[in-house]
Every structure is written in C-alpha cells, then in structure tokens.
C-alpha cells in the first residue's frame, strides 16, 4: 500500500500514512500485506495444483509436502487458500466498486445539492440499510445463476447506503466552507464544484468505509459460497472449502480450522486497517 495523499487539513507534523499504520497496527499491515501478496501472486506461489485431485492423499494433516494438509479430494490446502485469496480480492473489488460508485454519487448529490433530492436519497438510505442481504442474494441468484459476480452484486447493493451516508455528511459539512464559496464566486457550476472540490476532500473517509465494507465483502463471499450461491466447485474459495470441510469434521477437523483461521485473518486485517486509517484521519496524521 502506498501513502496516498489523504485530504486532511495540512499539518507540519503529519507523517506518512504507511509509517503511521505500521506503528499503530502492525498486525493489520502484516495481515493485509499477506492477503494482497496471496491475491496477486497466488498462482505463482502455489506449491501444488489448485484443482488436480489425488484421492490417495485425501484429508492429510500438515506435512513437509503439504504444509497445510490436503482436502477430501487430496488437493493441497495451501494452494487452494492462495486461490481463495484471489477470489476474496475479486469480491472486495466488486463490492467496493458498486458501493463506492453508486453510494458516493448518491450521497454527494444529496448532500451537495440538498432539497428534495436529499430527502429522497436519505429515505432510500434509511430503507436500504439493514435490509437482509441474503434476501437480495436469493432473488439475484434465483434470477440469474449462482456465481461470484452475481452474489457480490447483492453484497455491493448493501454497501451503497454506507458510502452514501458518509459522502452525504461530508458534502454537507463542506458545502458552505470558504474555498467552496470562492469556487462558486469564480462562477463554477454546482456539479463541477462537487466533482473537483468536494469529492477530493472525502477520499479519506471513503477509504475507511471501503476497508470495512471490503471486510464485509470477504465475509459474504465466504458465506454465500458456503451456501452454494457463490463460487462453484471445483474453483477454490474460502466458503466452498469450508463447505467441503463440513462433511469431514469428525475425520479431519484441522481442515475446517485452517481454512476458517485464514478467512478470519483476512477479515480481521481489513477491519483493523479501517480502524487505523480512521485514527490517522482523526488525528490529522500526527
């Protein structure tokens, strides 16, 4: 992760985001770092094939050949976890893109322009937030097919209210600040002001929401794939691996334990990262 310039009031004591994160929450940096490495380089790092089965080596515990053991079809668990990380990263990206684009646009327009648009969007956010994601997922998967993208569209819709709420409140805070008025005085249109003055100033809070909703995306990918509504076998994913593990809890409980620890680590890392970035913004990078 690079030190993206976050839009906070300039501060002489401000330090780089990465240095702050490393001191504030080293665990978050390590967990997210490992996750990103696995997601990007997983296919090259994997010691074995992700899909080739070998029934004579099924359900082994950790060993020198299979560091994290094997699954019921004798596939290497470590290699499949690396593949699952890539799937989880895709889930992250889809959800944050849907929530970020639609939610931020709605919130920015509602908070910046106000009036009836604000009323409608606020009501919409109120109605949408908290609505059971699983019901949206059931309808979408029933309409189309079980797949990662379809499942994540449902989860992305749940992320829209979060982005909308945050961008709306930042837009309202900024609406009457001097630099906005100055732009207005120079004859800039309202939409142009929202795009080039307000939006860049909410990047920080939006990154925090992206981190938390990204953690939710990974959790939901695992849940929906576990239910059979997401990634379909034989493709690896955290959820489909846990599904396979459920039938063998009595024979090889380590399999379920390892996969669960891996997915928990990814989600924990993203949640801690969100907390840490939030702290960084609160303190103006001190």
């Amino acid at each position: 992760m690079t030190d993206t310039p976050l839009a906070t009031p300039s501060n002489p004591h401000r330090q780089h985001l990465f240095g702050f994160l490393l001191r504030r929450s080293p665990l978050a940096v390590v967990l997210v770092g490992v996750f990103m490495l696995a997601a990007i380089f997983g296919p090259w790092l994997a010691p074995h094939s992700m899909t080739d089965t070998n029934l004579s080596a099924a359900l082994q515990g950790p060993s020198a050949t299979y560091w994290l053991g094997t699954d019921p079809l004798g596939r290497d668990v470590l290699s499949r976890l690396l593949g699952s990380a890539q799937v989880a990263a895709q889930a992250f990206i889809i959800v944050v893109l849907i929530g970020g684009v639609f939610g931020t646009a709605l919130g920015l327009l509602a908070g910046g322009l106000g009036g009836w648009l604000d009323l409608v969007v606020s009501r919409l956010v109120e109605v949408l937030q908290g609505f059971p994601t699983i019901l949206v997922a059931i309808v979408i998967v029933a309409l189309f097919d079980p797949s990662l993208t379809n499942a994540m569209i449902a989860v992305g819709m749940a992320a829209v209210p979060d982005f909308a709420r945050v961008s709306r409140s930042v837009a309202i805070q900024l609406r009457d600040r001097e630099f906005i008025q100055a732009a207005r005085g120079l004859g800039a249109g309202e939409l142009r002001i929202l795009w080039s003055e307000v939006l860049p100033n909410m990047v920080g809070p939006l990154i925090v929401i992206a981190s938390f909703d990204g953690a939710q995306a990974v959790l939901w990918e695992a849940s929906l794939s576990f239910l059979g509504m997401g990634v379909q076998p034989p493709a690896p994913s955290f959820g489909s691996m846990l599904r396979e593990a459920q039938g063998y809890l009595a024979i090889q409980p380590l399999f379920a334990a390892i996969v669960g620890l891996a997915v928990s680590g990814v989600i924990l890392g993203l949640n801690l990262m969100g907390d840490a970035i939030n702290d960084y913004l609160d303190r103006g990078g001190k």
Partner: protein
Amino acid sequence: MIRYLLGRVFGGLITLFCVTGLAFFATALAPGNPAAVLLGNMATPERIEAVTRQLGLDQPLPVRYGLWIRETLAGNLGTSSVSFKPVLDLLAVAAFPTLQLALASLAVAVAVAIPLGLLLAQNRNSWWSRPMSSLITIGISVPGFWVGLMLIVLFSVTFRLLPSGGYVPPGRDLLGNIRSLVLPVTTLAVYLIPSLVRFVRVTAISVLREDYIDTARAKGVAPAAILLRHVAPNTLVTTITYIGLQLGVLISGAVVVELIFSIPGLGRLGLNAVLNRDYPVVQGVVLLAATGYVVVNLAIDLAYALIDPRVRAR
C-alpha cells in the same frame, strides 16, 4: 408524533413494494413458460395457449403484478414446482423452527451483550478495557458459520455432548428440542454479540459524559446505581433501534445456521428453492421474510416513539 409514524409506515410500505416487486419479477422474468411447466407431458400448443390466457400470462407485466398482489393478499401463493405442495403450507411448517431459533438467539445475544457493554463503558479506563475491545474486533471478523463448525467439532465430535444437527419439535420432546438448539442458538448469537457489545459500549460512554450523570455523581449516588438507573435506560432506548438494524444480520445468519445444523426452517427452504429453481417457493420465502423485517422494524419505531418523549413531541 403522527407525522413521524406516518413517515415510518410510508417507508415500510415502499420497502415492501420494492421487495414484492423484486420477488415478482424474479419469477416473471425467469426462463421457461410456467404454463408449459404446469401442463408437463400433457402440453400441446393449444393447451399451453389456453392455460397462458387462464393464468393471465398474456397480460402486460404491470397488470400481472397487480393480479399477483391480489392473489397474494387473498393468501394464494401458488404451489411449489418441485414438491407440488401449496407454498403457504410449506411456509407455515418451516416458520416455527426459524422463529424459535431467531428469538432464542436474539434473547441470548441481548442478555449477554447489554450487561457486558455497560460494564465495559463503566470500566473504560481499566487495564482490561483494551484487550476486550481487541476481542470484540476479532469477534466481528470471525465468520459466524465457522464458529458453528468449530462448536460441532468441540461439543459433538470430541465430547459427544450435543447433536451436530437436526431439529426436534418441542411438542414431541422438549428436552430434545432444547438440546438440538443449543449449538445453533450459540452460533447465531455469536453473529450478533460483538457488534451489539460495541454499540452498547459506545452509547453508554456518551451517556456517561452527560451533565445529569455529573449531577447524580455530585449528589453522591453510588456508581452502580448510576449505571442501572441513569445510564442503562438511556442506552437501551438507542439500542432498540440498533437491534432493528441488526435484524437483517439475524435473518441472514439464520439461513446459514439452518444449513449447517440441518434445521428445516425458512432459510433452508428458501436456499433449496433457489438451487432447485423452485420460483414460487423462492417468492414465498422472500415475501414472508421481507414482510417480517418491515413489520418488526415498524414495531420498533413505534416502541421508540412511545418510550422516548422527545420523539413523541415531534
């Protein structure tokens, strides 16, 4: 107050309208002609055309949506295209286990999270406050269904204390019913507890900073009495609304928990229907769950208005 409530009812109706619309179009746009499916081997082009007209399938979509709402309000939800049983009967049978699971889990979660959150708020400067908040972050990050799997490994496989799945109706064997629900209820409560504790803690801390708490302290009221008589009631009012927001988590979690522990509830019914493309059942489950969600949230808003005089005055 009236305006507030009317606004809430209106919002609820809009949600229901959107969801029923979604549930309807999920079926209407689904591939395959329902008339042909209904006729099976007896299908001839003439018969399909006749049944199509009889079912109103030749009408434009908005008209069909109106017809569908009329049928639904009359209690006719159609028949399953897999088991050919009336959808209403399937829902009625599946609703009880789900309700029992959800209500018990909610009760457990509230009973654990509220006292814990209040205690954490009162002792926010003590040495165990930081490790506890780390624990809560971990709790929020661990997938609930994985906790369920690990509970099975521990209590069913290793110690053989509790069944790893299945559901015993309370009418047949009350003790068996309770035993069959211990692990599912624990798992579902784990979905709710961490975020609820965090919410109660944050809310109680802000209440503790209010002036009237300083006044009570200055009067010499004991800290425990302040917590119970002043902080707890003011925290609970806000927490009720939060529980309404968490209802979606409860419903989503119930589906996963029912699958893990083979509980024949609404979640498993809906899930099997999706994977079997049994559209009338999908529609019924989504309709029932969404209606339940909207109605409970309305009830919570109403309770909120009754408890909090500031809302009543609006």
